[in-house]
């Protein structure tokens, strides 16, 4: 009986987190298309519902009622598994994101490593989808994305080391409370810029959307997918983007902390601040998509390995030296 009530309680908490995330993923797609349209002086989706807010729901309905086509020569089990894995991995990472002092589903010691591990598993959804389709374009897209995601993970890892040097803990709530006096965006501003660009590459967003470059690869790894399975890839991708925005706001923008700890600002609950920061970063993502042209593949690799990696490594040395010299290293 005790077990049962605990399990039900946990399920209730998980649903309370998961449903808002899924709804906000749908809304964020609308926002993305709207921002994209406004930059290009178009209207964007504005017909379904007020301001076109229900456009994503209409799209989802369309996808649900479409036929799922599984290619005859594909590897069926892996073909079906791929979008499920993408979506699951994008959602389970939200378990450790703190929305307030104790508003977190799982307050684990190695929260940041957990997010990093889950996001590094994300590449499998894409590889499996591309390989199981048994077709040239998806396979090329999958190979491209695997190479791209593995390379940019390295620089994200080193950026995380920079932040951890200043915190001395892998717990996400500790990382946020360490920013009470100053957000890490101020001392680590170059790292924030690199994190932002690497996050674009990690989530296959333009200008780094080589895996699905429609001019070269039709739709990359998603070419053979249709109906709900395509929609799951799509949802997983946007959930991942939101997760990267959340991680960026936790690492650099102080998570659920208000900008200054003053009277009217600290009345607003932390969850609102976190959502506000995630939205801010996401609008930046959307603007980049609208403004910047797509990179060439060799430029992408060069940027990752020859510029970001050495630069962030040097910054690790600088941060460590600075902290050591001024005796600011966190004490355990």
């Amino acid at each position: 009986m005790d077990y049962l009530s605990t399990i039900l309680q946990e399920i209730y908490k998980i649903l309370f987190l998961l449903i808002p995330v899924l709804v906000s993923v749908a809304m964020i797609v609308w926002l993305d298309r709207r921002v994209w349209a406004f930059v290009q002086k178009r209207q964007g989706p504005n017909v379904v519902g007020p301001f076109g807010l229900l456009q994503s729901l209409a799209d989802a309905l369309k996808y649900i009622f479409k036929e799922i086509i599984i290619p005859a020569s594909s590897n069926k089990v892996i073909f079906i598994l791929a979008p499920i894995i993408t979506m699951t991995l994008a959602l389970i990472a939200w378990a450790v994101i703190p929305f307030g002092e104790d508003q977190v589903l799982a307050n684990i010691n190695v929260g940041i490593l957990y997010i990093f591990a889950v996001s590094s598993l994300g590449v499998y959804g894409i590889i499996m989808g591309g390989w199981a389709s048994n077709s040239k374009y998806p396979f090329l897209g999958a190979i491209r994305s695997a190479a791209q995601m593995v390379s940019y993970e390295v620089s994200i890892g080193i950026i995380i080391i920079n932040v951890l040097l200043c915190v001395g803990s892998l717990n996400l709530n500790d990382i946020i409370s360490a920013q009470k006096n100053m957000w890490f965006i101020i001392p680590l501003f170059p790292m924030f810029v690199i994190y932002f660009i690497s996050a674009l590459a990690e989530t296959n967003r333009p200008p780094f959307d080589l895996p699905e470059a429609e001019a070269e690869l039709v739709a990359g790894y998603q070419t053979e997918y249709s109906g709900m399975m395509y929609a799951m890839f799509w949802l997983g991708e946007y959930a991942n983007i939101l997760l990267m925005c959340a991680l960026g706001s936790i690492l650099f923008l102080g998570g659920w902390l208000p900008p200054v700890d003053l009277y009217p600002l600290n009345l607003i609950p932390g969850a609102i601040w976190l959502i506000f920061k995630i939205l801010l970063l996401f609008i930046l993502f959307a603007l980049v998509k609208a403004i910047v042209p797509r990179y060439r593949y060799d430029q992408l690799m060069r940027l990752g390995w020859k510029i970001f990696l050495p630069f962030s490594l040097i910054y690790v040395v600088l941060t460590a030296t600075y902290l050591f010299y001024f005796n600011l290293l966190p004490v355990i």
Partner: protein
Amino acid sequence: MIAHAIFFYIFSIIAVISAIMVTASKNTVHSVFFLILDFISISCLFIMIGAEFLGMIMLIVYVGAVAVLFLFVVMMLNVAQQKNQWFQSKSSSRHIPIGLIISTIIFFELIIVVGGWKYKPDLVNSTNLSFTSDLTNTHSLGKILYTDYIHIFQISGMILLISMIGAIVLTYRQREGVKKQSYLKQISRERSEGVDVLDIPSNKGVKIDE
């Protein structure tokens, strides 16, 4: 405690079955996927015994990077044809003795290690390893790794670096006739060298690439 046992057996059964399937499955890509499943369930076991740092590092390094490269290599090979040759030709029996020798060696090594540990658990206990409850295991790992074992740690880092450089040196070769795009050349191009404005006489044309 019961829930703990149930989860332990779930993860270990998945780990054992997927480890068997790595060798048993006929499709090479499938066996890599089973290997990944094996890694994941073993890292779950690590987390269950409280070594969450090791579990996460296992996920990040092995599943997130090493297995991706495995998958890369296996997908690139045209495995279907190769496998048929491998199993259908009559000479396949010559792989069996080598395999037997290697597996016997590994088996005896395991017996020696596990048996020695059973016989004398404090055989490898050379440090004053203390697990205080207020330290997370990341901190205690760091405290041991960067104090008692710093030299071994540095040496292993150097070995990894050298092997990385060695791999690059071995595979790198300068090939003739490969057109490279020089980033610097491309962005430092100016109008004066890229564009030629010519006065073309009517009905005569002009020769390009003189």
